[in-house]
C-alpha cells in the first residue's frame, strides 16, 4: 500500500500567519491575493501533479506548501523564477501544464498575476473555508440599517450598481410565502397585506414573516429541501426496488423544523440519536432513534447475486459522503481510492470517518420482507428492509401483532406435529417422480420445483430445495392442504397488519469491529487498519472523547468547526435567493467557488452559531433585509449589468421548484389538502410507467380522494423511476445540495397536459364561475369576465394584469366559449379529467371555457416563477 503522507499537511503549514511582506507592492499596485487570484490557478492547473497526493506527485515538487515551492521562484527577481519560465514557455517539452495533462494553458493575464504575486513576496494564505469564521465588522453605509444590506451595498457600490426599490407588496408576500411555506398566498391574504403595508410597511411585513414561520407548512417547505440532501425515498432502489417505511423520519424532519429545533440538535439527533442518553438518562427516545434514519435513507441492494460485504462497504461510503457533503460541504468521495488531489483529505481520513458509520449489525441485503395491503386498501406491495430497525407500533398495535404472530406459530406447529405422518408418503412421492420423470410435469407446476426433484436431499426437510418440494407435496394432499392454508391465512393476517405499522431503519452500533482502508475502494483488498476519527486537517475531536458518531456530530456543530455553519447558512441563502453565496454548495474545498460576499457569509455563520443555531431566526434575518425585498421588475440595462444577479441589486426571480409549482396549482384551485404527515401517497401518474421500468413487477395503483391532493412532499418516491410530474429534482439516489433549473419542452408538456394541472384548472374554473354566479364579481357580463380573469391572474402571479393582459385573457375566454359551444362533447371530455367531483349545476361549456383560461394562467411564466 502507498505510504501515508506526512501528517504535517498543507493546512498546518499554509495556515501559518502571513508574515510581513518580503517583496514590496509597487506604489498604487493592487495587492494580489493568494486565495482569490493565485490559488485557483495553481489548484486547477498544477496541484493535480504538484499537490497534496504523494502518489501522483511529479518531480518531487509540491506547490501547495510554500516551504516546498520556494525553490521555483525568486522574489527579488520574479522574471528569473523557474515557475514563470515554465508556465510561459513556448517549448512543448518545457511548458507547464504539459500538453499531455489536457489542462488549459496558463493565459498571459494569469501569468502576470503570478509574476506580480511573486514580486509582492509570494505569500500563501490558508484556504478561507478551513479557518473558523470570525465576526466581521459590519460596514457603515448610509441607508443600510440591516447588516446584510451593509455588506451587499458595499459590493454594489464597488460594482457601480444601483439597487432596485422594494417589490410591490402583493408580490413581496407571494415571494415570502413561496419561500417560507412553499405555497402562494391567497388573493385575500394579498389584498389584506396590501392594506396593512400601506399603513406601516415594516410592521406589516414583520407580522407576515412571523405568521409564515409559525405555519405548520413551514416545516414541510424546509423538509422538502432536507429530503433531497438526505436522499430520502420510499423504496430501496436497485434490482428489486422494494418498498421501505422510513416515512416517519420524514415527519420527524417536518416536526423538527416546525418546533424550530436548533440546528445543532437537529444534526446530533440525525447522526447519533441512538447514542444519546435520552431525557432521563435511560437511553434515546423513539424520536431520537427515528432521527437516525438520516443515514439509513441510502439505497439498499437486494439483487440476487450481490455480495453482502461489498454492499456494506458501499452503504458506509454513502454515509460518509452524505454526511460530508451535507454538513461539511466537502466532496470526499475521491479519497475512497486515493488521497484527494486538491483538498488535504487523505485516504486514511476517509476511512477514519467510515469507521464511525460501519459498526452496525446490518445484513448487506434485505433482512425483513413482507408483502401486504397498505392501510388504504391498495393491492399488495412488496416491502423489504434491513436491520436494525424500530417498530413504531402503539402498545395496542404491538399487542395485536403479538397475537397474530402467536397464531402463525400455532398454525405452523399444527403442521409440524404431523411430520411423522407426512414424512414417509412425501419421500415415496418424490421417489416415484425420480423413477418416472413423466410424473414431474403431471404433479408439479413450478419450473424451479421441477428442477430440484433430482437433487433435493430427502433426509433434510429444512434444505431449501426439499422445503419447496415438500410444500408442493402437502398442497397436493387433502390431508395436509388445509393445514398449509391455515398457515398462509395466519401469515397473511400478520403481514397485512404489519404493513400498517411502519418499521424505520435506524443506526445502532451493535457490531463493533475494525475498519481497514480499502485499496482503490475495493472491499476485497483491505489495507492498513484505520482508527475512527475526523480528517486531520480540521480541528481535532475534544481530548478524551470516544471517536464515535456522537463525537463526530458534536464536533460538526461545536462552533469550532470552520465549515458547518458556513455550509448551512449558504444553503439557506440559496433557498431564499435561488443562488448561493458560495456557488458550489457541495464543495467548499480548494476547487470550490470563492464566496461572492465572504464577510456576509461569515457574519451569517457567526450569527447563526451565536443564536444557538436558530433556523427561524436566521431566515427572518435574511428575509427582513432590503436585498431580499427588492423588486424584480427592472429595465433591460439593469439586467444586462448583472445578468446572473450575482450582486443582488434586484429581486431574485427564478422558476419555482417543480414540486412547488404543483403545490401552487393545487392551492390556487382550492384542491390542496392541508393534512400533515403520514404514509406516502400516489397522485396522478400516466399509466404503465412503473410497469415498463420494472418489467411489470411494480404496479402503480393510484391513490384516491385526498391522496391525489396532498403536498408533493408526500408523493411516493420510487427510486428507480421518480415521480413523473416533477422535473429538475434530484434523483434521490445520492445526497444533493445544488439546485437544478433547466428548461425543456418536456416541462411545458407536463404543465400543459398532466392531469394534475387540468383538474386544478377545471376545479378553479368552477370556483370562479360560482363567484360570478353569486355576484362576487361586479358589473355586467363583460365586466364580470374581466373582473374574474383579473382575480385569477392576481391569484396566480401576485400582480394585477395590465389592460393588454386582461384583454388577451378575456379574448382567450371568448374564443374558448365559441369552440366549446360548437362542440359541447369536447367540453364534457375536458370536464371529466381528474377525479374531483363536478358541480353539475354549472354550465358545462362555460366551465370548459374557463378551464382552458385557468390552465393558461397556471402556465404563465409568472405563475411558475417566484416574483
Amino acid at each position, binding site marked *: 500500500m502507498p505510504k501515508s503522507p506526512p501528517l504535517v499537511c498543507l493546512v498546518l503549514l499554509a495556515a501559518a500567519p502571513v508574515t510581513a511582506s518580503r517583496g514590496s507592492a509597487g506604489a498604487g499596485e493592487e495587492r494580489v491575493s493568494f486565495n482569490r487570484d493565485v490559488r485557483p490557478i495553481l489548484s486547477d492547473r498544477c496541484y493535480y501533479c504538484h499537490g497534496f497526493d504523494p502518489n501522483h506527485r511529479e518531480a518531487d515538487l509540491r506547490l501547495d506548501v510554500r516551504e516546498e515551492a520556494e525553490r521555483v521562484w525568486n522574489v527579488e527577481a520574479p522574471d528569473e523564477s523557474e515557475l514563470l519560465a515554465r508556465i510561459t514557455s513556448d517549448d512543448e517539452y518545457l511548458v507547464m501544464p504539459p500538453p499531455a495533462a489536457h489542462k488549459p494553458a496558463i493565459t498571459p493575464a494569469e501569468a502576470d498575476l503570478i509574476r506580480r504575486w511573486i514580486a509582492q513576496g509570494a505569500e500563501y494564505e490558508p484556504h478561507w473555508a478551513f479557518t473558523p469564521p470570525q465576526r466581521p465588522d459590519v460596514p457603515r453605509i448610509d441607508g443600510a440599517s440591516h447588516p446584510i444590506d451593509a455588506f451587499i451595498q458595499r459590493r454594489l457600490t464597488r460594482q457601480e450598481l444601483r439597487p432596485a426599490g422594494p417589490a410591490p407588496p402583493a408580490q413581496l408576500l407571494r415571494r415570502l410565502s413561496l419561500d417560507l411555506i412553499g405555497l402562494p398566498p391567497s388573493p385575500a391574504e394579498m389584498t389584506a397585506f396590501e392594506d396593512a403595508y400601506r399603513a406601516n410597511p415594516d410592521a406589516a411585513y414583520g407580522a407576515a414573516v412571523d405568521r409564515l414561520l409559525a405555519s405548520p407548512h413551514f416545516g414541510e417547505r424546509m423538509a422538502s429541501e432536507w429530503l433531497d440532501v438526505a436522499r430520502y425515498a420510499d423504496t430501496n432502489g436497485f*434490482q428489486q426496488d422494494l418498498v421501505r417505511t422510513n416515512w416517519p423520519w420524514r415527519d420527524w424532519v417536518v416536526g423538527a423544523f416546525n418546533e424550530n429545533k436548533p440546528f445543532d440538535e437537529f444534526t446530533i439527533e440525525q447522526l447519533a440519536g441512538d447514542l444519546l442518553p435520552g431525557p432521563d438518562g435511560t437511553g434515546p427516545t423513539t424520536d431520537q432513534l427515528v432521527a437516525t434514519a438520516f443515514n439509513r435513507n441510502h439505497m439498499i441492494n437486494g439483487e440476487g447475486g450481490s455480495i453482502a460485504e461489498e454492499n456494506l462497504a458501499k452503504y458506509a461510503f454513502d454515509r460518509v459522503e452524505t454526511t460530508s457533503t451535507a454538513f461539511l460541504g466537502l466532496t470526499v468521495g475521491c479519497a475512497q481510492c486515493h488521497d484527494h488531489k486538491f483538498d488535504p483529505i487523505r485516504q486514511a481520513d476517509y476511512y477514519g470517518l467510515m469507521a464511525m458509520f460501519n459498526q452496525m449489525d446490518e445484513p448487506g441485503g434485505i433482512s425483513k420482507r413482507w408483502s401486504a395491503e397498505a392501510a388504504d386498501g391498495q393491492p399488495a406491495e412488496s416491502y423489504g428492509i434491513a436491520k436494525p430497525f424500530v417498530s413504531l407500533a402503539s402498545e395496542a398495535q404491538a399487542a395485536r401483532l403479538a397475537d397474530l404472530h402467536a397464531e402463525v406459530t400455532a398454525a405452523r406447529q399444527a403442521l409440524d406435529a404431523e411430520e411423522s405422518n407426512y414424512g414417509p408418503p412425501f419421500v415415496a412421492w418424490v421417489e416415484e417422480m425420480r423413477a418416472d420423470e413423466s410424473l414431474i410435469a403431471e404433479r408439479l407446476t413450478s419450473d424451479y420445483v421441477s428442477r430440484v426433484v433430482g437433487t433435493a436431499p430427502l433426509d433434510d426437510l429444512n434444505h431449501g430445495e426439499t422445503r419447496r418440494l415438500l410444500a408442493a407435496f402437502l398442497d397436493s394432499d387433502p390431508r395436509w392442504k388445509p393445514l398449509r392454508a391455515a398457515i398462509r391465512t395466519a401469515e397473511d393476517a400478520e403481514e397485512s397488519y404489519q404493513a400498517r405499522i411502519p418499521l424505520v431503519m435506524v443506526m445502532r452500533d451493535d457490531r463493533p469491529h475494525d475498519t481497514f482502508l480499502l485499496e482503490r475502494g475495493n472491499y476485497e483488498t483491505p489495507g492498513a487498519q484505520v482508527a475512527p476519527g475526523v480528517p486531520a486537517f480540521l480541528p481535532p475531536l475534544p481530548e478524551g472523547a470516544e471517536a464515535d458518531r456522537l463525537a463526530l456530530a458534536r464536533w460538526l456543530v461545536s462552533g469550532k468547526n470552520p465549515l458547518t455553519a458556513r455550509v448551512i447558512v449558504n444553503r439557506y441563502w440559496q433557498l431564499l435567493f435561488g443562488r448561493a453565496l458560495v456557488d458550489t454548495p457541495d464543495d467548499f474545498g480548494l476547487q470550490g467557488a470563492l464566496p461572492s460576499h465572504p464577510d456576509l457569509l461569515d457574519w451569517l455563520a457567526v450569527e447563526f452559531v451565536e443564536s444557538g443555531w436558530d433556523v427561524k431566526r436566521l431566515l427572518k434575518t435574511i428575509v427582513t433585509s432590503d436585498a431580499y425585498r427588492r423588486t424584480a421588475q427592472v429595465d433591460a440595462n439593469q439586467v444586462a449589468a448583472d445578468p446572473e444577479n450575482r450582486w443582488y441589486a434586484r429581486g431574485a426571480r427564478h422558476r419555482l421548484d417543480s414540486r412547488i409549482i404543483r403545490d401552487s396549482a393545487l392551492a390556487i384551485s382550492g384542491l390542496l389538502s392541508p393534512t400533515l404527515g403520514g404514509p406516502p401517497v400516489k397522485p396522478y401518474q400516466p399509466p404503465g410507467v412503473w410497469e*415498463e*421500468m420494472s418489467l411489470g413487477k411494480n404496479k402503480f395503483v393510484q391513490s384516491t380522494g385526498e391522496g391525489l391532493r396532498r403536498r408533493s412532499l408526500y408523493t411516493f418516491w420510487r427510486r428507480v423511476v421518480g415521480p413523473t410530474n416533477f422535473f429538475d429534482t434530484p434523483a434521490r439516489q445520492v445526497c444533493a445540495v445544488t439546485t437544478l433549473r433547466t428548461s425543456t419542452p*418536456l416541462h411545458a408538456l*407536463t404543465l400543459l397536459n*398532466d392531469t394534475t394541472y387540468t383538474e386544478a384548472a377545471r376545479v378553479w374554473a368552477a370556483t370562479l364561475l360560482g363567484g360570478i354566479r353569486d355576484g362576487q364579481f361586479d358589473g355586467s357580463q363583460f365586466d364580470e369576465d*374581466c373582473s374574474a380573469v383579473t382575480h385569477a391572474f392576481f391569484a396566480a402571479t401576485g400582480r394585477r394584469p395590465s389592460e393588454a393582459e386582461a384583454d388577451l385573457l378575456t379574448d382567450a375566454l371568448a374564443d374558448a366559449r365559441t369552440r366549446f359551444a360548437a362542440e359541447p362533447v369536447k367540453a364534457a371530455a375536458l370536464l371529466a379529467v381528474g377525479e374531483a367531483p363536478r358541480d353539475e349545476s354549472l354550465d358545462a361549456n362555460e366551465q*370548459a371555457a374557463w378551464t382552458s383560461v385557468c390552465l393558461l394562467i397556471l402556465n404563465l411564466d409568472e405563475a411558475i416563477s417566484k416574483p
Partner: protein
Amino acid sequence: MNATPLDHFHRRRFLGATAGLTLGLPAIGSLLAGEPGRGGEAGAGLPHFPPKAKRVIYLMQSGGPSHVDLFDDKETLRERRGEELPESVLQGLRQTTMTAGQSSKPCLPAAFGGRRRGESGMWVGDLLPHTAEIVDDLCFIRSLHGEQINHAPAVTQMLTGHNQPGRPSLGAWLTYGLGSTTDELPSFVVMTSKDRENTCGQLFYDYYWGAGFLPGKYQGVPFRGAGDPVLYLSNPAGVAREDRRATLDRLAALNQLAHDRYHDPAIETRIAQYEMAFKMQASVPDLVDFADEPQSVLDLYGPDVQRKGSYAHNCLMARRLIERGTQYVQLMHAGWDQHGNLPTQLPNQCRDTDQPSAGLVKDLKLRGLLEDTLVIWGGEFGRTPYVQGDITNKNAHGRDHHPRAFTIWMAGGGVKPGAIYGRSDEFAFHVAENPVHVRDLQATVLHLCGIDHERFTHRHQGLDFKLTGVEPARVVREILA
C-alpha cells in the same frame, strides 16, 4: 371569495377585436440540447476532429448474452463437455453468490451449433441466422472485459463509465458535447423492451440514460412502448390541436408582456420551449406512424415490427429517429439472463432480436446511413463457459454472469467492416489476445464521434470528470476503418 378590486385601471373593453395572433417566432435554438447544428454546451473546440459517426444507435442487450453460444465457440470446451473447468482457469476469481457456492463447474460448450460465416470467417451461433448474413458488415470484439459481476453495476459501468449511479451516460456526454441537430425531437432517446416470456429480472433504472451532473436537459428522453410515446405528449381530453394553438399563442403573448416587465431572458427561453413542445406534439406522432414504410422495409425487421414496445418496433423507431435528427438512440432489451433456462430461453431471445438487429443494419446500409451511423450491439457482460445448475437436466440449466471476456459487435460509423478483434482463451474464459476494457470501448466510441476522451471533461465539485474515468483508457485504433 372576495373579488379583487379593479383598482389599477379603467378601460373600455373591445368586443370581438381578437387580432389574428400569430407569433412569428424565430427559430430559437437551444431547446433540448444546445443549438441545432452547432456545438453543444460543452463549449468551443468540439468536436476535436471530424467525426466518422454522426449518430449512434446502441442496442443494449441487457442481462448478458452468452458469448459462448453465440460467438465464441471453443474446441476445448466441446472436448471437455461436462468435465470440470480447470482450477488454473478459475483462479479463485469472484463469482456472483449464485454460483460462488456451486462446488462443481463443468464445461458447457456452445449448445446450439454454429459455423464460420462470410469472408471474415466469423463464427456465429445458428441461433442468429440473420446476424450471420451480415458478418462482413460487422466488426466483432471478442476480448471485451470489465470487473462488474452483477447487472446494475455492470450496465451502469457500460453506459456511464462508473459502476455506481450518478455519472452522465454516454448519450448525455455526446449530446452535451456535440449539441443537437433537431429542434423537434430530443437528441437522445431511450426505448426499452423485454422478452415476451418476461423471464428475466433486470429493471431499467433512469440513471442508465441519466445526465448525472450535466444539466438535466441532456438526459435521455424515454419513448414509451404504450400510451403516449413521450410522457404528457397528448393534450388533455377535449383539447384539440387548434385549441392548444390558440392557447399557446396567447400564452406566448402574455409571457412576452412579462418579459417586457422583467427583462428576464429565462422568459424568452420559456416561450420558445412551449413552442417546441407544440412541435413535438406533431412530430412524435408522425415519427411513430409506420404507414409510410413499404412492406419490404418492414420485412427487414421481422414479424414483430408492428407490435409497439417490441424490440423490432424499437429498432425501426431508431432508424426513423436518426433520420429526423436524433443523434443518440439507446435501446435497452432485457431477457438475456439465462441462469437456469438457457436451453429454452436463449432460442426465444435470439428469435426476438436477431432479425431486427440485422434488419436495422441492412436498412441503414440501403439508405446510405450506415456510413456515418455507429451501431453497437452488446450486453453488460457475457456468460460463464461453465454450467450453472445441472448439465444433465436437458431443459433446466444455464450460465452465470461473466465479465472477464465477452463479445460485442459494432457496425458503420467508421469501424472496419468484416473485422474480428481480440481473442479469448481456449475456455472462452479469459482474454488471450488484444484485451479491450469497457473504458477502451467508450474511448473508441467517443473517438468515432470526433471526441478525444482525454480532453472531454466536465467540472463538477471541483473535479474534471470524463466518461472514461481516472484509469487509463485507449482508443482501439485497430478496428477503425
